[in-house]
């Protein structure tokens, strides 16, 4: 009711400020009214919102325990600048069976040598070649959604 009244007055005055004023009214109404807030927050369209803090990749640490059976192990170190392409796979320069011992790195699982028909290949199977499809490094970020997940006690050493 109030809104319409204001708009009415403005129209009546016929000032050049009508259009921007309408914009302002509409913006406030939609975010405040039904509780929908855009990811940018309550910031007008022509203003710049505050960017989220940059997340920092966690520094090298001990292997992270798995949370459930079949979880791809997390990468406990930075992989900045590591490339994986047809010519080389930077991860495998340490994690391949040939290099793991000298690098002191865990070997790629033997399951990664099987193609999807179950044939065992002599090298990492193409479907397993792109490590970061499943294995990811971590940033120090809180969970996006609050949850009550607990790791399996049978495989997780606990804290």
């Amino acid at each position, binding site marked *: 009711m109030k809104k319409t009244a204001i708009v009415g007055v403005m129209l009546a005055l016929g000032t050049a400020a009508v259009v921007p004023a309408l914009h302002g009214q509409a913006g406030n109404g939609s975010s405040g009214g039904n509780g929908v807030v855009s990811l940018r927050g309550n910031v007008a369209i022509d203003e710049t919102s505050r960017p989220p803090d940059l997340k920092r990749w966690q*520094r*090298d*640490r*001990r292997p992270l325990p798995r949370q459930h059976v079949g979880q791809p192990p997390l990468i406990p*170190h930075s992989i900045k*600048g590591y*490339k994986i392409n*047809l*010519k*080389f*796979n*930077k991860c*495998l*320069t340490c994690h*391949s*069976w*040939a*290099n793991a011992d000298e*690098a*002191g790195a865990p070997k790629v699982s033997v399951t990664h040598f099987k193609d999807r028909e179950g044939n065992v290949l002599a*090298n*990492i199977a*193409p479907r397993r*070649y792109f490590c970061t499809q499943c294995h990811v490094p971590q940033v120090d970020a809180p969970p996006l959604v609050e949850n009550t997940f607990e790791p399996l006690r049978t495989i997780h050493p606990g804290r």
Partner: protein
Amino acid sequence: MSQARDGDGGGMVARVRSWLRRPCGRWSLGTVLGGGFVAGIVFWGGFNTAMEATNTEEFCISCHEMREFVYQEYKDTIHYSNRTGVRATCPDCHVPKEWIYKFVRKIQATNELFHKVMGSISTREKFEAKRLELARHVWDSMKKTDSRECRNCHEFESMDFTEQQRRAVRQHIKGLEGGKTCIDCHKGIAHSLPDLREVDASATAG
């Protein structure tokens, strides 16, 4: 020279030699010495200035082979951009600091001029086909000099292992004991690695 020797220039060579041997009666010893000294500064300074002019990033990337291929890869690496803003440019890694080694490297570089003229790596395809060979040249020379150019900035003796990350500490201690040099492990840190099929098949596709 050879032309002179073939024709009647044999006499000319002899004349020049005798002119060089004859004591100079026209100028005082001071003038000759002083003139020689000044000329020495000018020529030596000029030579060094010209050599240093070829020792800059601008000079390196004035050719498209360097600018389009290797320079673009280097721009993604820590030697180009990092938190403290210290940058290692092309000559810091690829040209020795010490004069005599620098001079030798610059003479070797004439071979690169030859291949520039021949267009040996003038396209992306040609360059990729030669990348392993070129990388091996750099690896081999770094290995021979105990990674001298790395050590201009990174010295084992000055490294505080306690400040390094877990993986680095372990590997650096092992490397020190094993008599390894930087390039043994740190390959492909400023440019993309070549196709590793021939070098380490376990780290390639298929």
